[in-house]
């Protein structure tokens, strides 16, 4: 479990988080959304113990991340946006690094590489950024840590690879794991996450289960102008509008993450009151 209590963080005099409190529980894939500079990476870095809160407290499975103790580090893995891989072969990388992760699954690692179409015996040297990222993500997921943080994992991946990534991440989800994925590409997280965390103005403006969102809000393409009157958020598209409305009839529907994000950013109080 990740517990964030009265969390403050600032870069110099610029506040990034002011008094954020929330709890992230195992068994969920959290999608962290927000504009550039809203602190998505900063939040992940604080959870990983790479940055220290300027106020408040973060605990991960009861441990203080800032201490960077081996018992903490062996059970958390972070895939940063900018990552480093030594110039060695994949087998050597696995040989020298997997030993630090007691639950590392070698078979799963090979499976993920196969899915990404990367030969197991390849050299990391000379690989493209995208290929290296696939190796890194495969290793991260195969490490089977109880907390997996991914900062913009889809950056640098082509469309096909994004689909492969989705499969790999989905296979990593289990009841005892917390997966946190940050992205400013909202579409990339669709059909992948089950909880959404939206950051804005130094705080978490929305943290909600997507099933609950779909019960309370409806997202649809409307050709009827009268729908706009009851809409919480509307956006004109070719020959109509995409609208976010209160799901009064509790009809089953799919959450459009991008619309949810835009609706939340435009009217956070309204969205919160409906989802309450």
């Amino acid at each position: 479990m990740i517990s964030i209590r009265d969390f403050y963080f600032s870069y110099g005099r610029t506040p990034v988080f002011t008094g954020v409190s929330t709890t992230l529980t195992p068994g969920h894939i959290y999608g962290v959304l927000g504009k550039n500079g809203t602190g998505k990476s900063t939040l992940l870095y604080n959870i990983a113990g790479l940055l220290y809160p300027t106020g408040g407290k973060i605990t991960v499975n009861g441990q203080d991340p800032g201490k960077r103790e081996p018992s903490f580090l062996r059970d958390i893995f972070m895939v940063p946006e900018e990552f480093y891989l030594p110039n060695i072969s994949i087998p050597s990388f696995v040989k020298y690094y997997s030993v630090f992760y007691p639950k590392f699954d070698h078979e799963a690692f090979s499976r993920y590489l196969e899915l990404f179409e990367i030969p197991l015996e390849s050299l990391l040297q000379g690989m493209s950024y995208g290929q290296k990222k696939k190796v890194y993500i495969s290793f991260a997921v195969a490490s089977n840590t109880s907390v997996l943080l991914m900062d913009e994992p889809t950056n640098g991946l082509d469309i096909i690879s994004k689909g492969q990534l989705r499969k790999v991440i989905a296979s990593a989800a289990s009841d005892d794991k917390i997966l946190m994925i940050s992205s400013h590409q909202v579409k990339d997280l669709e059909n992948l996450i089950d909880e959404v965390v939206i950051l804005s103005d130094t705080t978490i403006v929305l943290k909600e289960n997507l099933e609950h969102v779909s019960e309370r809000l409806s997202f649809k393409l409307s050709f009827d102008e009268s729908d706009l009157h009851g809409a919480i958020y509307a956006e004109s598209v070719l020959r109509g509008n995409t609208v976010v409305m209160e799901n009064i009839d509790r009809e089953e529907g799919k959450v459009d993450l991008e619309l949810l994000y835009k609706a939340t950013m435009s009217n956070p109080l309204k969205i919160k009151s409906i989802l309450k």
Partner: protein
Amino acid sequence: MVANIFQPARTLLYLKKYVFENGRSFILLNLAIAAFLVLWLGVYLNFTNPNLFSERAQVAYYFITLFLSGCLSAGVLFSELGSKDRSIHYFLIPASLLEKFLTSLFFAIVIFFISSSCIFWLVDSIVVIIANSKYETHWEVINLLSLNKYANPFFDGPLTDIFYFYFPAQALFILCSVYFRKYALFKAFVVVGLLWVVGVLLFLAYQRLVPTGMLHLSAGSYEVLEANGDNKMVVVPWWVLVSGSVLLRYLLTPLLLTVAYFRLKEKEL
């Protein structure tokens, strides 16, 4: 229960990883030292002065090489922390910071000292043989295991006393490489320069404030010279002398390295 401070098995795993990843750059560093020595002493071989290869000169070359290469390599020991991706990599490897730090020190101080000394001995042996045949001299290759039998070209005192300067200087460069995020090596030179200036200023202040006299370092006393010849002797208490000597000789290096460790512990991205 996971030992969070130090675990020998985990340290060994980290050491293996470190050797595998840094072995090549370590070999290159040693080759660079060898190349530097070949270039330097090779140029000297073209001069006509045969004394350039005397034991006294060889000792000087050894310590100059050791100071230069030891401090330069120490100044970039933690340079990886200057880049975000490598910092993340370093901090998130599941080993304790003490294990990571000790591994780096083991290579930067112990292994480096042994390897660079071996390389010096190797190059020096070849160069001295060539010099002896060229100048028809009988210089001996210096024995690095018994340095005190040679004259000290830098100051009065046994040659091994130079190590009391070398190891703290190297530790200072290591501290700077941890402390500064960018351009640590250049900043380390600035720090050394500033320390030098402070030293000079303190010496000037000492000369102005203390009455004219003579310092007897070995006896730990200062003789104040009076115009009438009635000189006075100021004796420094023995415990001050012993404490100062122990601090400078044996505690300064561990102290600087301890500061570096705690600085590393509190370091963020």
